[in-house]
């Protein structure tokens, strides 16, 4: 039994940490936050040069063909750097295409994504913002050899910079995944400002957008499976990002507790402060355990994979928020300021908690699998 990153994965992680320490310092994060799209073309190209935009894309489509466990070694560092931009959105879309697309579609999209030439995202949520696939209402109406899309998608991450948006809609036979390219007739994208300015959210209006039926990625029942499996990849990558954010908050809070003096002593000498830090460590390590396992289970197609993903997202959602709370508490007033970088991580943690369903959502997913009586 070996439940740890391998030597090669640890090297990959270290190189990612060094890369972001160089290329994505907090000043740059703040500049990107203040920009319209939080997208940095030079940074994106540099990441593509490292191979990360194609890290889990199969080699025959120009990727590195590595596993999800390799990927989380990198996305943890993205979380530590609070990396802005469409990496996660593109990863999610690529994972859907990889699982649902035909050979031709995979070639069409995955090769430019791996090369860093294409950004993508997924349009799933609608007005009621329900992460259940059953809640998808938007119709994909058949019209000859085309689908026509009308309706509005909400909480679409990075839609403004995406070269292609994978729209999840409902056709006569069930869910349909339709790739809609930037600039398509009838596509209107409007920014909706959210708590985390490093990952921009958009409302995307489809006004009779036409997509050839041949473009659809897959049809039920494979669509549902593909969306589940592809989304699992993105959830695990997000959990690792959250883990990286927790690790940053833990380390910076402990450092602050060692140096900040009150009553003539570093505040870290007081047990009330020590125990906050110890709890932050507990939650961070718990999140690490859950995330590593989920990554392993998904990459191995283990029967426990879905459950493991929900366990990881449920735990990380609560833990990331709470680590932020404890960190802010130990920092005192300075941690509440705009000037201090804690706020970047605090807000990212909140937005990440919400994305793909919070702890309550995933606990209900878990309950359906372990509390309800299962057949056989």
């Amino acid at each position, binding site marked *: 039994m070996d439940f740890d990153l391998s030597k090669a994965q640890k090297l990959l992680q270290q190189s990612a940490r060094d890369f972001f320490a160089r290329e994505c310092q907090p000043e740059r994060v703040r500049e990107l936050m203040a920009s319209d799209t939080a997208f940095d073309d030079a940074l994106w190209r540099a990441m593509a040069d490292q191979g990360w935009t194609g890290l889990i894309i199969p080699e025959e489509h120009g990727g590195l063909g590595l596993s999800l466990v390799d990927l989380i070694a990198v996305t943890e560092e993205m979380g530590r750097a609070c990396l802005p931009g469409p990496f996660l959105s593109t990863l999610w879309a690529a994972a859907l295409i990889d699982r649902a697309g035909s050979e031709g579609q995979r070639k069409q999209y995955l090769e430019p994504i791996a090369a860093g030439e294409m950004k993508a995202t997924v349009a799933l949520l609608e007005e009621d913002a329900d992460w259940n696939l059953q809640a998808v209402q938007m119709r994909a109406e058949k019209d000859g050899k085309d689908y026509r899309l009308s309706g509005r998608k909400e909480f679409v991450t990075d839609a403004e910079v995406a070269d292609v948006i994978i729209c999840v809609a409902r056709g006569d036979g069930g869910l349909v995944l339709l790739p809609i390219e930037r600039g398509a007739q009838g596509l209107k994208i409007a920014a909706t400002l959210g708590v985390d300015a490093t990952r921009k959210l958009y409302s995307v209006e489809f006004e009779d957008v036409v997509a050839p039926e041949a473009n659809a990625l897959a049809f039920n029942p494979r669509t549902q499976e593909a969306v589940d499996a592809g989304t699992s990849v993105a959830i695990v990558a997000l959990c690792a990002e959250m883990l990286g954010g927790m690790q940053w908050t833990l380390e910076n809070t402990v450092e602050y507790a060692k140096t900040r003096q009150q009553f003539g002593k570093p505040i870290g000498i007081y047990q009330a402060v*020590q125990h906050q830090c110890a709890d932050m460590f507990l939650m961070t390590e718990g999140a690490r355990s*859950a995330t590593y396992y989920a990554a392993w289970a998904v990459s191995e197609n283990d029967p426990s994979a879905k459950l493991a993903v929900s366990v990881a997202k449920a735990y990380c959602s609560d833990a990331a928020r709470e680590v932020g709370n404890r960190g802010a508490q130990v920092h005192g007033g300075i941690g509440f300021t705009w000037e201090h970088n804690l706020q970047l991580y605090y807000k990212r943690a909140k937005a990440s908690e919400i994305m793909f369903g919070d702890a*309550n959502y995933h606990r209900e997913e878990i309950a359906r699998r372990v509390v309800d009586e299962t057949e056989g």
Partner: protein
Amino acid sequence: MNLNLTPDQQHFRDELRTWLQANVPPPFAGNTSEEEKGEYFQYLRDWQRKASDAGWAAISWPKEYGGRGAKLIEMAILQEEWARAEAPPLINALGLYLIGPTIITAGTPEQKARFLPKIVSAEEIWCQGFSEPNAGSDVASLATKAVLDDDHFVVNGQKIWTSLAHAADWCLLLTRTDPDAPKHKGITALLVDMHSPGVVVRPLKQMTGDASFNEVFFDNVRVPVPNVLGEINKGWQTAITTLMNERANLGTGTYIAFKRNLDELIERARQTKRGGKPASQNPIYRQKLAQAYVELEIFRLTNMRSLTRISQTGAPGPEGSILKLQWSEFNQRFQQTAMEALGPHAQLWGFDDGRWVFNYLRTRANTIEAGTSEILRNIVAERVLGLPKSY
């Protein structure tokens, strides 16, 4: 990352599983409360004897002392299989896991030959005399005196929270032998015959009604000098060996027991009606049951990471220090969830053999025994995070 057992480990597991299937006795039929302890203890001694005859009692010990020189991962497998088979506990657990290893580390050849075989066979039961009324978390401030008188130490004082003292034949006792030295430097560890004149054991009844702990009084108890374990006045080093072992619970057996308890609760919640529907369909209880599942998974997985780390480096990593915090605090939250989901019945001693009310009460001590949560958080803060020492 590879979470599968190696062929050797699988072979070990299969061999043990087969042995357990053939040999685990039926559950003890009688009363396990204190009046009946005689019979129950005999049942447990017989079981350990059977296990030791087959070579399963002290597998982590070196071969020359009756062990198999088993690796940590095999210990973890053993604890898991033991729990899975619902096998009775090994009555001499303190001897096997804490005191025996301390004797192996610090004992003389004579002490090893005299004591180790009878620990393995449960012929002699051991207890651990560390805590005192005024020396709990700060155990190094202990006051039980041992004064040298020719070739004996004469012991006077009191110990408390001593598990198994009422059944024990021997005690690993920490005593103060140099009252003038700094507190860590005047302690001597003695191997004390519990049948010596002047030893009085008084059971301590707990809030559960059980008496698994005791007070032990020493009144001019004479202990031969050859029964010093380690060196005179260097007993703190000896004690540290034991305490390190105490917190190195491998967790795998604990996990299986908790998981079984959670499965029982889920099954019960399906049968319990709330508002005309099973409690298992109530959204609040579903959330809490799922949260228990999440926390239990975190414990299982963190434990696996800890075992990996110990196997690789020989020492527990940072995740090791949080396991006891995790399981003890989880267990308290979980038993509260059980009380809520099962409703008024859960408080009854006649419902499910009283297991829910017993567990609810018993877990109160989980965050106190073997290192309080406060002490463990201090340890994490100081030794893992490098914060300054607070006391």
